[in-house]
């Protein structure tokens, strides 16, 4: 079996475009991305794990400061993740082998070119802005958390402790600051230049240049250039990306195309089923009618046959009855004659011929 999934879904997908129309970032035909959009490059070989970005992020987003103070090294004892109260965290990874030193990676929403969260949202609460950031609109959110479940980077948090108006919480790439020609807070706060903000295309150029100049320092890949259709955050590393908790074996196909490809089956089913099922219904009705007619015919035939037989029997009976009667009459006549003759022969004088014979 070597059915290509893409081929299968792609074939089915043809119809979906018609039904769903063009829906920007979440349309699943390949979207090369808005020209001139911005992004960020995180060079993990430059990151020292100071967590200044975490603090800056909390400040600009009016969130409580990081739960573990920046001065407390215990923050790295456990793998942390983004939450509803902390939109970015820095983790320490110690690659296998022992000799290599610890690597720090910053986690946050990657701002995908074709965001899965946007494609799975049934109220379209997410928008991929032409500038690059993916934005979330809490005013329409129903709180199903399909986006949280679907994010391949597990970057989305949810306000589980808010009973009345819980929101999905995630990095906005400091969209408001970008609009004011400011850098995102984390990039501005980074003291080592591990975070670079700029046009995504330019950042890919910067990353490539680093790979070319210091091939020994890096794994020869820019994570985020093509992963799941590409991301706005790009990552450089000196150790395999899987060791930094990035999804292993991430394909280049955008996830939305995997998800909404199947939806092209919907118009097919709606189109084909009524006729097909009415056909089945007609067949079963016809079968029923035929078997009814057959039954009727069989009954009629049986009745006819029975009638004929009865007639025959009756006729035979009548015939035999007639014969019996004839015989009986003949016999009775014979006997009467014989008796009459005997009576006459033996008749003494005086006995009238008219006297009845008693028998």
């Amino acid at each position: 079996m070597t059915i290509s999934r893409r081929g299968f879904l792609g074939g089915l997908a043809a119809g979906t475009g018609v039904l769903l129309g063009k829906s920007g970032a979440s349309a699943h035909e390949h979207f090369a991305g808005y020209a001139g959009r911005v992004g960020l490059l995180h060079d993990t070989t430059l990151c020292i794990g100071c967590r200044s970005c975490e603090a800056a992020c909390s400040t600009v987003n009016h969130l409580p400061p990081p739960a573990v103070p920046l001065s407390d090294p215990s923050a790295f004892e456990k793998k942390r993740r983004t939450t509803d109260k902390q939109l970015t965290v820095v983790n320490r990874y110690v690659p296998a082998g022992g000799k290599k030193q610890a690597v720090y990676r910053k986690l946050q929403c990657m701002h995908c070119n074709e965001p899965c969260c946007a494609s799975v949202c049934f109220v379209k609460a997410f928008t991929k802005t032409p500038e690059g950031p993916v934005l979330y609109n809490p005013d329409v959110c129903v709180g199903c958390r399909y986006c949280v479940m679907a994010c391949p980077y597990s970057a989305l948090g949810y306000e589980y402790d808010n009973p009345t108006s819980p929101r999905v919480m995630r990095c906005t790439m400091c969209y408001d600051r970008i609009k004011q020609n400011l850098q995102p807070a984390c990039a501005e706060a980074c003291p080592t230049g591990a975070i670079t903000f700029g046009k995504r295309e330019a950042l890919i150029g910067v990353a490539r240049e680093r790979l070319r100049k210091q091939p020994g320092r890096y794994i020869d890949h820019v994570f985020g250039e093509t992963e799941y259709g590409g991301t706005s955050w790009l990552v450089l590393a000196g150790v395999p990306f899987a060791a930094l908790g990035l999804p292993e074996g991430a394909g280049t196909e955008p996830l939305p195309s995997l998800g909404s490809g199947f939806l092209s089956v919907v118009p097919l089913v709606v189109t084909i089923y009524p006729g097909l099922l009415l056909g089945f219904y007609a067949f079963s009705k016809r079968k029923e009618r035929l078997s009814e007619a057959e039954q009727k015919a069989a009954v009629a035939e049986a009745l006819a046959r029975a009638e004929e037989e009865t007639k025959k029997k009756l006729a035979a009976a009548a015939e035999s009855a007639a014969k019996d009667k004839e015989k009986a009459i003949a016999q009775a006549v014979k006997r009467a004659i014989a008796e009459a003759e005997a009576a006459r022969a033996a008749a003494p004088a005086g006995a009238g011929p008219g006297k009845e014979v008693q028998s």
Partner: protein
Amino acid sequence: MNGNGAFSSPSAGRVLTPFNLVTGIILLGGAAIVLLRFAKGLGATTNLSHTNPWGLWIGFDVMTGVALAAGGYVTSSAVYLFGLKEYKPVVRPAILTGFLGYALVVVGLIVDLGRPWRLPYPFVVQAGPTSALFEIALCVALYLATLFVEFTPAAFEWLGWRRWRKAVGAMTIALTIFGLILSTLHQSTLGAMYLVTPTKLHPLWYSPYLPVHFFISSAATGLSMVIFEGMLSHRIFNHQVEVSHEAFDRLTLGLAKAASIVLAIYFATKVLGLAQGDKWRLLATPMGLWFLLEVVGFVLLPCFLFALGVRDRRAGLVRFTALLVVVGVILNRLNVSIFAFNWTLPAEERYVPHWMEVWVTLSLVAAGLWAFRWIVNRMPILHEHPDYKGMH
């Protein structure tokens, strides 16, 4: 087999039966937990996390609940579209179970959603038609309405509303076709929801055929639920049942024959899923053994046992096997949504339901039983209404 008065009798004076006590306590506790959930939030009542945003309320109440309520579309299609008239006695209980099942799915969803009062938003405020969930929401809403209309004949007969009863009866074929379309779509799309998580769902369960797997297994589940629930109804409400035990066994065996074939098809598509991604190697891992337990123990084995039961005319074996299939589908849906999801994460980051989540799920089941009993004791579900015999 005597009718169990504790559950079945409408007029029995005894209210404090063991069944009523246990389910009553469960329901009261469930109501308290739901209050707590809306007062303090999901965080106070569930073990949901940023990494595991979907737990038991989605994995069981929605994913499994929808599959367990599949008996309605399976039986109504068989009887009204495919002309298997002798199965008519099982349609009404199956439709009622389906209607109550879907109603409880929606209740479960309301408890789980962050802002459930916005449930109509996808249809009235802003539609997200690229989402599998949009399609499911639309289909489930329409199908719940369809099941309700399909259930009304029993209510109208009970109320004596002849004209209404006749009007709905005339819509039977259209309703059945509509129901089968909607069921095909949302049963399969529940599986399609996981197509976007190739890195999170274990590859043995992840497959481009997930929608097909979900749909075919729902048909087998529908048939098995009808067998299983028929057995319970015949024991508990036997004073209401008109069909003789012999005739009932015949229907059971017929359903088992169909279920055996559907399970064989389902098993074949599961094998296709393995072959399509060349995933045979994974069978020799711990998750592989878990997968084999599900697919061999709860798909292939019941497929074989159903066939055996039909050949030897053993209704008892068939009923046990139906239970096996029901357990199997619960296992499958929980595997996809919980056990095989986020499988690469360390144990401390995996989801284990909070006891309050389990309690609410039990409350939904209890509520379903109460509603089923209330209706069956009043309306012509398990028997035909004498005035309406032979009607659609």
